[in-house]
């Protein structure tokens, strides 16, 4: 019983090619990175006491050669991934609970904002007392940083969801759980992704602090260790590795974002 079935059926298809994806951003990305390296080189050449790119590159090759770099990267990456995944997952759930249930928000929000202002270094002693010196407290510190960075954003996302969409779901029979999974999460995807990107940055920025806790390897550990010897090339290699890994994970998040928020009308 197709009342209007022929109405919009089979519009004339245009055989013309779809517009090509612009590759300009990637080129500019690359240009920007080259420019940054140029500035760094110039600073080094101007006599500021930082190692020049070739020196750092040589050290990187050396560290890659003896396996340190790989081991460190693996150790830190594991911690960051674990902490980040747990932190953002909890942040999304807590963000929903806080946005949805007034009392949860009233109870939790002061502490979230309180702990956000406390540097991770100050948390470490307590983490050790409660969790020892193994992997758990390290991941916990990273988890906390990612969680705190992400939760405000998801909370705002939940609060900002267009209520008519929630109403539409409710009149279709959706309960709270369905609304959370099928309406609130997709509708606040832009906020959740901001939260995840900020949380990712925090997770990596905290890995150095986390690896103060009796780490035996890891990029943060290597950096602190090198600081004792004022071994600037090693510090730079660790920092840059952290930055590059952070950047790569961020690009993955952006890809995910494009998938998840493609429904949006964006500029």
């Amino acid at each position, binding site marked *: 019983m197709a009342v209007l079935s022929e109405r919009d059926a089979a519009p004339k298809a245009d055989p013309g090619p779809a517009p090509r994806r612009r590759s300009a951003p990637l080129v500019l990305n690359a240009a920007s990175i080259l420019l940054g390296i140029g500035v760094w080189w110039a600073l080094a050449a101007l006599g500021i*006491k930082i190692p020049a790119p070739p020196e750092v590159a040589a050290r990187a090759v050396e560290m890659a050669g003896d396996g340190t770099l790989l081991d460190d990267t693996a150790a830190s990456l594991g911690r960051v991934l674990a902490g980040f995944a747990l932190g953002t997952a909890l942040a999304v759930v807590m963000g929903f609970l806080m946005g949805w249930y007034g009392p949860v928000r009233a109870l939790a929000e002061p502490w979230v904002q309180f702990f956000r202002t406390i540097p991770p*270094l100050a948390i*470490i*002693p*307590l983490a*050790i*007392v409660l969790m*020892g*010196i193994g992997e758990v407290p390290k991941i916990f510190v990273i988890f906390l940083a990612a969680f705190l960075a992400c939760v405000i954003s998801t909370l705002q996302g939940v609060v900002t969801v267009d209520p008519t969409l929630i109403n539409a779901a409710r009149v279709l029979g959706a309960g709270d759980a369905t609304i959370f999974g099928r309406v609130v999460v997709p509708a606040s995807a832009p906020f959740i992704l901001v939260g995840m990107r900020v949380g990712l940055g925090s997770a990596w920025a905290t890995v150095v602090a986390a690896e*103060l*806790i*009796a*780490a*035996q390897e890891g990029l943060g*550990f290597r950096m*602190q*260790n090198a*600081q*004792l*010897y*004022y071994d600037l090339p090693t510090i730079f290699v660790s920092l840059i590795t952290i930055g590059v890994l952070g950047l790569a994970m961020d690009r993955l998040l952006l890809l995910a974002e494009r998938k998840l928020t493609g429904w949006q009308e964006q500029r």
Partner: protein
Amino acid sequence: GGGSEASNEVRFGYIGDYNGASLLAVAEDQKLWEKHGLDATASVFTNGPLQIQALGSGDLDFGYIGPGAMWLPASGQAKVVALNTLGNADRVIAQPGTGSMADLRGKTVGVPQGTSGEMILDLALRRAGMTKNDVKVVPMDASTIVSAFSAKRIDAAGFWYPAIDTIRKQVPGLVELAKNSDFRGEMEFPTVFVAGNDVVTGQQDKARRVLAVLREAMQYRSANAERTVELTAELLEKDPAQVRADAANVQVLGAEELDRLTADGTVRNWLSTMDSYFAGTGQLERSTGPENYYTGDLFTSAGQP
């Protein structure tokens, strides 16, 4: 920054404990700066390496560092212009019931890397015929050592007073397996005053006057121990009892005593012992040699009219 040869301004960095602050507290109280025509501003720092960096960038003229940072001047980044005290606060501590260093074999030992705590642990292990490989060394931040040891998460630590007092409140039965004085003659733990390289070369006169101030303050400190503690506590806005306890773990050096130790080469020996220690840890690739970074003659000459 840059030097100010003509001016009388002196920018002095220090750390807010008895070692770092006592001479400055005396100089202030006794108006020694004015006496030598100097206008000093003292900035407090929380560690030595940052001061070395500020010396290098010309933001400071003089600073104070502990034994753990001695490899920095040794590698040419600053000059040691005067010794200050000999540290006596470092310990290897272990959980109750530990008998000797040998009992630590295979145990977890926390240590703040690059500090005198690591130095004392190394010395103690060596004396017991062991190396770092015989125990499980975990590098940790100082504040985390307190938590980890108190919570019995580590079996031992290379650490120092007054932080050990805090731990003792939680673990009254902790045992001390080694202390600085165990290694008298073998190795000293000097705290020193440092200056920027160009301050020593380019502004000799000012440096000499600053050293004259320090010498007179040393004199006063040796003669008026209790009063110095009070003055220091006042400067640091700390409880005098805390500072007194701190001072108890310090052997202060007098100016004349230092002249003597410099003249007979003792100071140079101490410093080169440290150089080789730091060479062993890998922190120091090549020492410039104490004669190149310790300006003992300048110190001595500052005492002569």
